[in-house]
């Protein structure tokens, strides 16, 4: 393991509170972050360093848990513990709140846009997953409410190319949903983790999915399309993380996996290209043990620059890293 993860920049994003999530916009010119201070901050590059361009303070009454950019980059969605999801529209350098999506019973944990751009998914501690549709007039309507989980749903994520949705929950399971007839249904339930599944990420092709859990492991799942769609766990990475693994991201450009851990560390895993595709092998390529002084909550690969990564932490900071692949 001679690859390295080098710190490029570190700055305080949400003073005196947690930074829960950081997201690159599709063109990687901006970042959005959100935190326990109920604010959303928009960051832009000024020369070599990141500057706060805008603070969206009055959108939510409680912690903002997640922000997500629309595929076109014009809209931002924010999910909050106040049980609402706000949709913001970019107007020059600022954002204005277009509408607030209500309906969840309690804390909304995640929001994510479908690649098609006209569907949105949210999930909540109320155990439900909602799919929303937006029309040409920027009106949002609920498409469906799915109750497949028996506990708090931590994350929802869309498949990169197909209209498939996946969710991760405190009930230790992952559910995969598809539209059938005129409603959405859970088509597969992936069991295997022995504790809360915190996050999920699809590989660039969408054939595989990686999950990370409070059970301190990462699992790789492979999709099998037969009469029914099934997912099988083809690899488990254990012994690498000392605490709960809170986030995982699969790089669209390089295929590398990165994890955010409760032991304050950030780890990059690379796939062994010579291994049997039915039994993939991932090895630890880089590890920063004290990436932040507290829990790392989120990891996000830069969608345009290979090897560039953003992380954020309970200590309120955002850090930018460069993964140097020594085998170039």
């Amino acid at each position, binding site marked *: 393991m001679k690859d390295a993860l080098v710190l490029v920049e570190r700055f305080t994003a949400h003073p005196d509170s947690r930074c829960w999530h950081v997201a690159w916009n599709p063109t990687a010119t901006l970042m959005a972050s959100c935190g326990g201070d109920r604010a959303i901050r928009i960051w832009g590059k000024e020369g070599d360093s990141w500057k706060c361009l805008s603070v969206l303070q009055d959108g939510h009454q409680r912690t903002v848990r997640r922000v997500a950019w629309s595929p076109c980059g014009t809209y931002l969605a924010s999910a909050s513990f106040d049980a609402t999801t706000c949709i913001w529209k970019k107007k020059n350098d600022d954002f204005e709140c277009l509408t607030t999506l209500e*309906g969840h*019973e309690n804390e909304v944990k995640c929001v994510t846009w479908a690649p098609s751009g006209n569907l949105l998914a949210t999930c909540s501690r109320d155990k*439900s997953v909602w799919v929303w549709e937006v029309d040409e007039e920027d009106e949002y*309507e*609920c498409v*469906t*409410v799915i*109750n497949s989980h028996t506990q708090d749903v931590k994350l929802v994520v869309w498949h990169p190319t197909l209209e498939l949705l996946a969710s991760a929950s405190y009930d230790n399971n992952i559910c995969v949903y598809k539209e059938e007839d*005129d*409603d959405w249904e859970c088509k597969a339930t992936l069991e295997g983790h022995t504790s809360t599944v915190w996050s999920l990420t699809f590989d660039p092709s969408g054939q595989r999915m990686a999950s990370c859990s409070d059970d301190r492991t990462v699992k790789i799942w492979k999709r099998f399309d037969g009469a029914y769609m099934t997912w099988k766990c083809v690899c488990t990475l254990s012994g690498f993380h000392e605490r709960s693994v809170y986030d995982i991201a699969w790089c669209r450009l390089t295929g590398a996996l990165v994890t955010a851990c409760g032991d304050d560390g950030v780890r990059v895993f690379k796939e062994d290209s010579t291994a049997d595709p039915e039994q993939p092998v991932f090895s630890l390529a880089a590890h920063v043990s004290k990436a932040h002084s507290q829990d790392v909550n989120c990891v996000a690969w830069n969608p345009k620059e290979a090897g560039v990564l953003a992380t954020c932490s309970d200590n309120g900071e955002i850090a930018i890293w460069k993964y140097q692949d020594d085998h170039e």
Partner: protein
Amino acid sequence: MASHFSGVLKLTDLDDFITPSQECVKPVKLEKKQGESVAKIQIEDDGSYFQINQDGGKQKLEKAKITLNDCLACSGCITSAESVLIAQQSQEEIFKVLRNNKLASATDQVVVVVSVSPQSRASLAARFGMSSSETGRRLTSFLKGLGVHHVFDTGFSRTFSLLESQQEFLERFQRKEQDKSALPMLTSACPGWICYAEKTHGEFILPYISTTRSPQQMMGSLVKDYFAEAQGLSPRQIFHVAVMPCYDKKLEASRPDFYLEEAESREVDLVITSGEVLSMLEQEKVILNEVKAAPLDELFSNVNGGELLSHAGGGSGGYLHHVFTHTAKQLFGEEVKELTYKTLKNKDFQEVTLEKDGVVVLRFASTYGFRNIQNLVQKLKRGKSPYHFVEVMACPSGCLNGGGQLKPLPDQTSKDLLQQVERLYKAETASLPEDDTRVSDLYHSWLHNVGAERARQLLRTQYHGVEKISNGLIIKW
């Protein structure tokens, strides 16, 4: 145990209607002994409690118990609301009442009345391969064999609900310019919808909801007021059971608004589901096909020539159909023979319009299922709802697909079963509420005599916004 209640009610959380509180404040009858004895309480390994007296003697202590009525009538209980409701509004309770009746003296006996919904009948009909009317006759025979005195059909009380809904809509339509919350009128027969509306949208949505009672509660009025008086009984002397296609109806029956304070009696004492009737049959080792048919109790049944009748307009009561056709006739002089339903976003969201001279004068919709209810309410909140009337049901595909209906057999798909149930339900001839002479007679003999206020109490109801309780002890993590 997974919740049986409708998806809408599940999300609403039952405990907001029957709230558990930190301590049960219901006094339990104790046998108090005089004296200054100080006793110790010892807990045995099996969990039973023994009182150890000063003289060393041991006495087993009785478990404190309270009845469902007491429990639900007070501010809180120590067990989960849902389990109280399910456990005590079950077929076991009916067997208990029937057993007690057999042992009781003439003065202590109760008259047992069972009101069966057409949807439950259709569900049982599908399972046993009979027509809905034949199922009604066999059920009558089975229930009477157990000791039930009368078996009625809520299709009869539904006639009242449809007539009242028609009337109420016309009143609301006439005052729509002065009263901004007169329209759209939202139906009130579905308790899953009502409880969700009361809890989640409170005072905003309640004025739009029809005050007309559901067929279940109309029957409650009929049985515990008209029938009781006609039979010279007090409401407490009648045990009224309703057979319904869902569990949410159990919650409706336990609403304080349907409790007769003076008589200390519920208008509907107990609700069991179609599935629970099947359990009763299985418990008694009875196969409905082998039961000899008994004549239907025509007093409170929608019958003609010994066959049960239905109402047009789908399996959830036909509110949209009847209010639409009645209004079209009364206000626009149009005789609508057949309604043209337009499917919107999904099959549980349909629209019907009436056009006159190229202008849409009536726009009605039916929204079934949580996602469609969500969108309806959100549009209403933004002032963007184009409808005059909406038939709202919590279950996708409506009441025929309720959570308490019989489940498909191993070789059946849910879809096929639902289609079969729908066919059997529709096979009953449709009757027109306006043409029912027995109902109109009752309007005169029963309701006109008691005066407008009492009639309103018997035919209508009201709603109450539920406050979100932020007591940390009640949050389920």
